[in-house]
């Protein structure tokens, strides 16, 4: 009973706090200086079409490295907690088996498209990686006893992570800054090969996220 009263009091306090935020909220009409700088810098400085991508990969690249590290730590934690165990075998329906063998390659192709065009269209390494992991989830759903080659998964993950850091350090060696995209020629605005190292870095992130999430799915299905 007392617990319920506490919960209701907390909720009333929270709603009062948040309602003043909503009621007094004013939408701005102009970009602030930092955002305007990012937009013009993305056009003139980096030649990348997608402003969000140029902020994530270059301007705030160090934070993205931290984010990838958090994702890696979570994967390591899940692997440590759940370990390996044999699950029950269930046979999938013929519809699922046939369609998954047809769809898996297409889904992986879509994932590669999303992370390699991260500087041109909405999308990027994280989204593409999740799409690739979904292809492997479909494989697991259609055949519960399927085994993935963990050596290759771990090799892809650790190599892409290492190359990501190496691309950053090349920027330090050339004295233009850690994770700067201008270590290779920028190219023409709006083309697939443009925006310097951004497509390379985002492809590496995509491979890393894809293999990490595949690892998570593979660990969790044993339960």
């Amino acid at each position: 009973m007392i617990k319920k009263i506490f919960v209701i009091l907390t909720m009333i306090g929270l709603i009062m706090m948040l309602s003043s935020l909503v009621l007094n909220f004013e939408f701005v009409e102009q970009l602030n200086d930092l955002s305007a700088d990012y937009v013009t810098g993305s056009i003139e400085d980096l030649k990348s079409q997608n402003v969000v991508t140029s902020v994530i990969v270059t301007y705030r690249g160090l934070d993205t490295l931290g984010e990838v590290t958090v994702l890696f730590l979570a994967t390591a934690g899940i692997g440590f907690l759940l370990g390996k165990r044999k699950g029950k075998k269930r046979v999938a329906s013929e519809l699922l088996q046939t369609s998954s063998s047809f769809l898996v390659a297409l889904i992986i192709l879509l994932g590669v498209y999303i992370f390699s065009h991260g500087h041109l269209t909405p999308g990027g390494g994280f989204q593409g990686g999740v799409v690739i992991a979904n292809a492997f989830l479909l494989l697991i759903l259609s055949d519960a006893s399927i085994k993935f080659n963990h050596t290759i998964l771990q090799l892809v993950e650790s190599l892409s992570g290492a190359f990501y850091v190496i691309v950053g350090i090349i920027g330090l060696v050339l004295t233009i800054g850690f994770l700067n995209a201008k270590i290779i020629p920028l190219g023409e605005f709006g083309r697939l090969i443009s925006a310097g190292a951004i497509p390379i870095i985002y492809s590496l992130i995509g491979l890393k996220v894809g293999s990490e999430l595949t690892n998570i799915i593979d660990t969790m299905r044993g339960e």
Partner: protein
Amino acid sequence: MIFALILGFALLVIGIYGMLSQRNLIKIVIGFSIADTGIHIIIVSIGYLRNRTAPILNSAVNLKNAVNEVVDPIPSVLVLTAIVIGLAVTALMLSFVVELYKKKQSLSIDDYQELKW
């Protein structure tokens, strides 16, 4: 866009209420997930500017005047980061739940009182 803001706050309140009132561990994780989604919607709607398009500088945007034609890119960046971290945290929480269930064969939070004072 004020509706998106209200929707975000409503989801945040529903999620926190779910986390506080539910006894089932998995339902608590679901409450966390709902609150997470609410926060994402709030951040994105804060970055919205009237009559503007997404910060993708393709043919829909005049490059010379891009600063006055796109919405704020920074909230989108923050939400992109938050979604990935939220996914990782949710997966980690669910694996904690699996471990706890293995230990006591119960999903009710009332059965785990070792740290209660």
